[in-house]
């Protein structure tokens, strides 16, 4: 137990520091990399809670795919920090109270009885052959099948919308048809003629 506690504190400390650096880092690429570190440590915390499927899915989906594309975009941006900071004092009157409100709400939710350590006892030890992944799958495809399918359809709509919004056909681009390219035979491109040698 002692080792687990130590691990929890180490992971949490790195998580908090990384999350702070996400908002304080001057270089946007560094900020994204700190966000990756934060995800990684959050996944470690979930592993400690024996939620191995969720923990690894967090890494596969967010660290492995989403953040890669994020990094991809951020690296190509030309961000001028001075310009970004110009509106700081003008927007503070709105941003400040919202931040305070969020902190108050978090404290209100997390400090009530229902979230205390008595209300959330450690999960009972799982039986041999218990598979976290299987339990999750059963729950999703039986009890929560409609919300799950609804979420999938919404994601699909968003996906198609994103493609449709970005698909602008230019008139002057030259397009190739790969199937035609692959189907090309030698006799379509080269004509071999037999020609007797000629004297000058």
């Amino acid at each position: 137990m002692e080792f687990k506690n130590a691990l929890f504190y180490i992971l949490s400390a790195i998580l908090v520091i990384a999350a702070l650096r996400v908002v304080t880092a001057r270089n946007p690429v560094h900020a994204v990399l700190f966000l990756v570190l934060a995800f990684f440590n959050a996944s470690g915390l979930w592993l400690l809670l024996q939620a191995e499927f969720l923990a690894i899915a967090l890494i596969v989906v967010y660290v492995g795919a989403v953040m890669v594309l994020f990094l991809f975009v951020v690296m190509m941006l030309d961000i001028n920090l001075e310009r970004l900071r110009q509106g700081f004092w003008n927007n503070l009157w709105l941003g400040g109270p919202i931040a305070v409100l969020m902190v108050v709400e978090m404290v209100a939710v997390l400090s009530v009885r229902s979230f205390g350590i008595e209300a959330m006892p450690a999960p009972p030890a799982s039986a041999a052959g218990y598979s976290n992944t299987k339990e999750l799958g059963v729950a999703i495809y039986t009890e929560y099948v409609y919300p799950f399918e609804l979420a999938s359809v919404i994601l699909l709509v968003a996906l198609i919308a994103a493609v449709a919004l970005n698909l602008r056909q230019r008139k002057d681009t030259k397009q190739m048809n790969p199937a035609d390219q692959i189907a090309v035979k030698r006799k379509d491109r080269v004509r071999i003629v037999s020609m007797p040698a000629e004297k000058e």
Partner: protein
Amino acid sequence: MESTVLQFFQWFWNLFGLWDALWALVEPVWPLIWVLMKIVAIIVPLMLTVAYLTLAERKVIGYMQVRIGPNRVGPMGLLQPIADGMKLFFKEVLVPSGANKSLFLFGPILAIAPALAAWAVVPFFDGGALANIDAGLLYILAMTSMGIYGIIIAGWASNSKYPFLGAMRSSAQMVSYEIAMGLALICVLMVSNSLNLTEIVRAQDRGWFADHGVGFLSWNWLPLLPMFFVYFISGVAETGRAPFDVIEGESEIVAGHMVEYSGMAFAMFFLAEYANMILVATLTSTLFLGGWLSPVGFLPDGFFWLALKISFFLLIYLWIRATFPRYRYDQIMRLGWKVFIPLTLVWIAFIGTWMVSPWNVFK
């Protein structure tokens, strides 16, 4: 195995009469030491295999092109990898003045760490994995998807054009092929009913063919034949090897993300690439060709078979490098998105239908 090792240590240190004193000191941390010993037992042979894979690559491609290949250092050139390693080890690691120094040095580390960490769940024989975890397949997916950060960070931190182009190409390519790879793996876990790699191998030892002594016909490659090809080809694309090597593309962008690297920092990328090749070969053998299982009933199972299957896939890696020209970039994207992903989706539906039909053979 643990008790055998302990008995050996007891016998050895008792020769000097030191066992009792030593054991009192070591006992509290013994599990840690035992795990470290197992890690060393995996990493050291892996690194040696990487070293000799580079030699095998040059030799095999040499023979395929009617050349001899390296034959000067040691008998038949067998010490060539050692000489290459020494050279890289003693070279200076240059950091370009415009580079982001900390990230520039962090890139190679981030490339090699996941390439080694993924080996933790690979079973080498029945029960012979460092960590026999339930979500082993997911863990492998997570670790292999991390490897791309090393390349992107290296490309960006070099602050140079060719590395940056290489990083852009690699991130697009890896994200595309990861999807096809993941969907192919879904078929495997459907028929095996498990994410645990040891269980996946054991599931391939069941069925009518396995009972009649021709086990190789009950392995996953037969019912999942298209997925077998999709997985291996995606694996080749993931490791950025020819014919998918536009990431390095030496005739276009010199060496991609590795342009500015020298010495050991360069060698780290090299080690990671070859360790990933061996990992893909191992996973293809484990998931589709029955891992440590023997192909026929009258021969015993064991690590020997896994090594044989890995060597076969590594040879194919080298063979296709010597055979095919490099893909054009739009063709790579087309193959990934328009051929592999629809094919895997159709095969998932097919396997699902098969499994609920009366002809289900995966039980």
